[in-house]
């Protein structure tokens, strides 16, 4: 029996609050699949790794892959791959939702007379940037390439939604698609992430938060305690991992003793020079809330730069993570590679 719009939104809310519950996922997915005139979905991954694909494939039944039934016209194409059916204006009855796991090449022509992804984006109902690489550059794209993709969307008034993560928690995608289909664009934060999934920091919901408050820190890997001194970026990482965990709720990074690397933040992986495991702060004995206040005082999403355990001395001042880290990403990511054109 088809769900009403209200019921679907309720289930989307459930997924945001309580995790990737099987019934919630199933209902959303089937509701979208059964909805007449549902927006076709184009998933664009050109030459990237399979991290997001595997995450979707193995997601709690039914996953996006299983329920991406005939209605969804899910096509992933690369203009360079001959033989794959290209989306064309005729194959979409309505504006598509484009999932960009790779950034579109500038000026690419589609193979076999199909439609270049840039044109498809221009007609899209919404563009979802999937994964930290596509959202903010990460380890794969430069800041200029990200800006170019954003400009492409803005030029045609295509709303942008960013779902970062390495990989993205798979239920973020299905929940966002459900929201898009039944309501519209969800509330986004300043980095275009849905508040539904990225509205809280990992630290806020972490099961080890009480140890931070009590000043009990793990000094070495494998020790019990808050992982702040091992470089945990939970205080600045906006994501659902602590509340909703991973792989059907089995476990998550900190739960397994692995510090959060803030893989969903624009500054990933350089984080203003701290890197993945440089410390945000030393913490201290006694109530840990002063530690968090210090980090927070420098600003939401900012990195507290102190003499971290990695031998770097950086200024103890507020920095803008967008500008600074994105520029650092763009400049440093490819090192000094000099790509020469054909001679």
């Amino acid at each position: 029996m088809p769900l009403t719009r209200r019921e679907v939104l309720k289930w989307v809310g459930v997924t945001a609050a309580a995790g990737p519950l099987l019934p919630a996922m199933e209902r959303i997915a089937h509701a979208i699949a059964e909805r007449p005139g549902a927006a076709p979905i184009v998933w664009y991954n050109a030459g990237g790794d399979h991290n997001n694909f595997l995450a979707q494939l193995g997601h709690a039944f039914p996953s996006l892959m299983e329920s991406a039934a005939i209605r969804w016209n899910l096509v992933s194409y690369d203009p360079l791959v001959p033989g794959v059916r290209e989306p064309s204006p005729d194959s979409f009855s309505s504006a598509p939702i484009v999932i960009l796991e790779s950034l579109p090449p500038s000026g690419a022509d589609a193979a076999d007379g199909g439609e270049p992804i840039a044109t498809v984006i221009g007609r899209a109902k919404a563009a979802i940037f999937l994964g930290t690489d596509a959202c903010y550059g990460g380890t794969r794209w430069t800041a200029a390439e990200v800006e170019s993709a954003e400009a492409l969307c803005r030029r045609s008034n295509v709303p942008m939604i960013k779902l970062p993560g390495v990989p993205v928690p798979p239920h973020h995608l299905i929940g966002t698609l459900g929201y898009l289909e039944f309501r519209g664009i969800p509330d986004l934060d300043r980095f275009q992430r849905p508040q539904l999934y990225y509205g809280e920091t990992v630290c806020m919901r972490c099961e080890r938060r009480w140890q931070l408050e009590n000043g009990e820190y793990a000094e070495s890997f494998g020790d019990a305690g808050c992982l702040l001194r091992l470089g945990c970026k939970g205080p600045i990482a906006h994501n659902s991992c602590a509340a909703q965990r991973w792989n059907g709720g089995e476990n998550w990074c900190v739960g397994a003793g692995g510090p959060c690397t803030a893989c969903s933040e624009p500054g990933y992986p350089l984080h203003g020079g701290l890197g993945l495991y440089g410390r945000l702060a030393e913490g201290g004995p006694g109530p840990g809330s002063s530690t968090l206040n210090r980090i927070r005082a420098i600003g939401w999403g900012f990195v507290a730069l102190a003499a971290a355990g990695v031998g770097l001395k950086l200024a103890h001042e507020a920095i803008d993570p967008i500008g600074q880290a994105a520029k650092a990403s763009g400049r440093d990511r490819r090192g000094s590679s000099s790509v020469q054109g054909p001679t």
Partner: protein
Amino acid sequence: MIVPRVEGTLQLVQEPGGRLRAAGARPRGIERLLLGRSPLEAVYLSQQASAHSGVSHALAAVRAWEDAGKLPVAPNGVLLRELLHLLSFLHGHVQHFYFQTLPDYLPLSAWVPPLDENGPAARIASGIVTSAAKIWEPPPFQSRFDEGARRRFAERTVEAVRTLSSLQRMMSVIGGKFPVVMSIAPGGITMALDEAGVLRLLEYLQHLEPFLTEAVLDDGLSLIDRYPETLTLGKGGANFISLGSTPADETGEAGLFPTSVLLGRRLQGLTLPITESIGRAYYRVPRGGGGHGPIVEEALGKPGAYSWIKAPRVGGSAVETGAIGRLVITQLAGIHGRASGMAALVQEQLGVPLEESNTVAGRIVARLGELDLIFRRCREILEKLAPGEPFLDNSADPSGLSGEGVGQIESPSGAVRHHMVVEDGRIGYYDIIAASTWNGSSQDENEVNGPLDTALGQRAWDLQDGDDRLDLSRIVHAFAFSATDAVH
């Protein structure tokens, strides 16, 4: 031609005369990204080279660090790492067969949904095929399977998806999440697995047993039965490499996979130098560079270059790696009897001596045949694990370390090697040789061809011909090739 259904972009370039060579595509540049960073970041970031080999890269990275500092690893941690590692093999092999290999033989248009045609299973089968296979669909072609077989493959693919889901959950129990596991650190595993966790893993494993130990190999054999040309298609060279699983434990019992090379029909330990040529690859050593080996710069347009994949060599020889390499070396070394059943199976199916079985069929059978072996070892490990004992030995503090280390291990598609130099706790040099680098290797300056190039060099190809393109796809996929892994 770009080969579909390969992680990343694998471009094949054609020489005048019709010979094809693997060229790959531009790398992400992980080795360069790691310079100046903590070795722990190598454990994490190298997993972005390939989703399928990620766990193996993380283990190779941490072992390079442990080698550099002679850091101790908790025995319980060795076991738990091995379990996590082997689970990634079960996952990789199942995913690869149903989503990357099978579509070369059974096109989307020929799928027959399971018998409850309007029920959830049918919709799911259609959905999986429509979504996942559409990503990589070749042009329509005639499949040789009858309707019953096609229905069975559909059912098995649905079960494969559920199996992958369970395996990912198991890896999450140990690693925090999958893909990109988070609990590998110097000294062991950071996850404090308790008795309940062990029981949970055993329970998952029990449910997966019939599918993993019987059904998948069954599907592979029926595929080869229908397509006997795969018995001779894509024949590779005569040299192989395998870089082991975990170190031998205190009882001296060797890990599941051997660490050895087979060169000129002789088994050897790894005493010969391992080098990486960039003679015909789009790289150059920057001015002032060199030292431990090339940290290279991209050099698009370099004369004579055609590929983004470097050319790793052992004593100057190209070596094939993967499940077939592990099997051949294990058998010829007479290391242990566990694999002898599988070796006998391969030889019986293929009808050739084992060391000549590296064809499309041989590679597929070796990979799927290994599932049973790996499954039994996983169960063994779960019985040996001691949840009360520590999983990580943090008695040594590696933070200011200076040294040089090598971490090597098998991944589902073959040997992985990380070579690191660390200076005061920061990476001064990093080189990764991934399984697909060995296999997809470009030609070196002595005109020695890599394994995939050798397999492609069987004949000239017509890229306009649909059947030729299918055969090329079949050859590449038999290697479980990943283009992002090859160039990282």
